[in-house]
């Protein structure tokens, strides 16, 4: 009796039930759908519109066509600066954190004792809020009194003026970024632990060296996780903001510098200034859309390259 009813209700329910299910189904996702419209899709389109206007929030937007975009690339040296700073930062931070996280995860996967202690030690820094991070690293990297330079001097290495020498500001930010690498380590570790043991055994029987096992088993079996971390790395580093703002914006004089010679003027920081300090909302929206296109292009390239280096088990099915 019950099973008959169940089959009835699951596979060919009556119209009334189907209608009821549809109404309730939509009711449950309604908040999410409204959120999608009001906080995601709507704003994306609105910012596209704003990007073609002059808009100071007080008076209604005035259509100016492509002016904002043209000005970005032809008349705004600071914008070009922010692009290069961000590209430089990403070019350093993404590969370094990927490689470091992967290597550490490989070591953690060696069935060493005390793994949970190591996991905790490496992971905790990634939980630190940007504010505390900024306050802390401002002093860790202090040229004269900071412990980083103290250790560098101890090792006989040059002790750079991390935060006041324009050549060192981006590396300093990368260093701070690397301190929070633990999250990626644990994602990699989960991937490594998911590699089926029998593949290693088979490789061993075939006489594969550790390098072969790594190159032909570990790497392909974790490539989808590398891919994931790479995409997330691109999206994250191109939008770095809080930590830079906290370290480099002097509290009293909010407007103005972004590190020595604007060497820390990352993209979103410049966008923030245009939007919320100069109230050039249209101009900043154009910046936002260029950033969207850059990120989309980069992730699309990574996705396109997937076929060549990312191995998905499911594809074989």
């Amino acid at each position, binding site marked *: 009796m019950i099973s008959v009813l169940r089959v009835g209700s699951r596979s060919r329910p009556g119209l009334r039930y189907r209608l009821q299910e549809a109404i309730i189904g939509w009711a449950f996702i309604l908040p999410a759908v409204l959120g999608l419209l009001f906080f995601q899709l709507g*704003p994306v389109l609105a910012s596209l519109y704003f990007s073609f206007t002059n808009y100071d929030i007080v008076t209604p937007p005035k259509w100016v066509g492509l002016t904002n975009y043209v000005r970005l690339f032809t008349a705004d040296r600071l914008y070009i600066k922010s692009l290069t700073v961000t590209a430089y930062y990403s070019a350093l931070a993404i590969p370094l954190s990927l490689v470091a996280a992967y290597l550490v995860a490989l070591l953690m996967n060696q069935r060493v004792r005390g793994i949970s202690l190591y996991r905790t*030690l490496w992971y905790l820094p990634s939980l630190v809020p940007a504010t505390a991070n900024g306050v802390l690293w401002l002093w860790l990297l202090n040229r004269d009194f900071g412990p980083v330079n103290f250790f560098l001097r101890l090792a006989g290495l040059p002790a750079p003026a991390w935060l006041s020498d324009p050549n060192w500001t981006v590396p300093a930010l990368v260093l701070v970024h690397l301190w929070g690498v633990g999250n990626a380590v644990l994602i990699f570790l989960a991937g490594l632990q998911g590699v089926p043991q029998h593949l290693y055994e088979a490789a061993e029987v075939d006489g594969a060296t550790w390098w072969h096992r790594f190159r032909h088993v570990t790497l392909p079996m974790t490539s989808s996780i590398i891919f*994931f*971390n790479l995409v997330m790395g691109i999206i994250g580093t191109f939008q770095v903001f809080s930590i830079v703002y906290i370290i480099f914006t002097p509290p009293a004089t909010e407007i103005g510098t972004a590190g020595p010679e604007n060497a820390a003027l990352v993209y979103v920081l410049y966008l923030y200034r245009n*939007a919320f300090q100069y109230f050039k909302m249209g101009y900043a929206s154009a910046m*936002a859309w260029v950033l969207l296109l850059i990120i989309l292009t980069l992730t699309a390239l990574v996705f396109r390259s997937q076929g060549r280096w990312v191995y998905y088990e499911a594809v074989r099915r």
Partner: protein
Amino acid sequence: MLHSSVQIQPLSRRGVRLRRLFRQAVAHAVLGGGGFLMMVPFFWLLSSSLKAPHEIYVIPPQFIPNPVRWQNYLEVLVDQPFLRFTRNTLIATVPATVGQVLTASLAAYSFARLRFPGRDLVFGVLLTTIMLPYAVTLIPVYVMFKELGWIGTFLPLIVPYWFGGGAFNIFLLRQFFLTIPNELEDAALIDGAGYLTIYARIITPLSVPALTVVAIFSFLHHWNDFLAPLLYLNHYENWTLSIGIAMLKGALSGGRDTTHLMMAMSTLMILPIIALYFAAQRAFIQGIVLTGLKG
């Protein structure tokens, strides 16, 4: 090549063991040494928070404060606006987290279990927003809140999270709900239970681990968030910890150096997070694993 290795293997069992020992030693050295380095900033933070101001400007840096000034913490808690900042942070964080868990799990239940036209399309569109840069929605959302007259209130920090709670959380919870067997719900349906009852009485209790993961990471996000408070909280009175500490950084109380107090506040801000980590370590690890599984 195959031949030689087959011959070598039985011979070198001791070699294999030695090599494994060596590998473990290297692993311990790097993991331990690196882990130690990772802890140095925490130690520096704690030690600076217990120093007198002039002790911070010392060459070489003094790692153990002498004397240990516990009164820094007392001063932060009594004189400084720390308690107000903490209260403000909780006012924003708690409702935002509740909204996120509630609306995300409702949507996830619907996507996982109910059948209705347009479901897969909406879910697909929702998933693409995971990759949407926040910078693109920043300005129009700000304009919207400005039009609503919500600047300077906590509403912009709370209300958006009552609208679905983020595509990623919906995705994560849906994946989890899909692993719960159907039988219980079918039985409940036959007994005349509504979908809301099933969600509240069957799905939710069976999904406590996944809901915990979402709640923890949601809480962390709001506790740590800097950008939204920076944009929307323009009054000293309603600053949260993240914006409050950043704004007070180096600018406090007429010419007096307050770095040690900043350090104490930062320590106090981190403390609950670390406590949360140790209280719910498994949920943390699980959450990170689930994050990676998406890839």
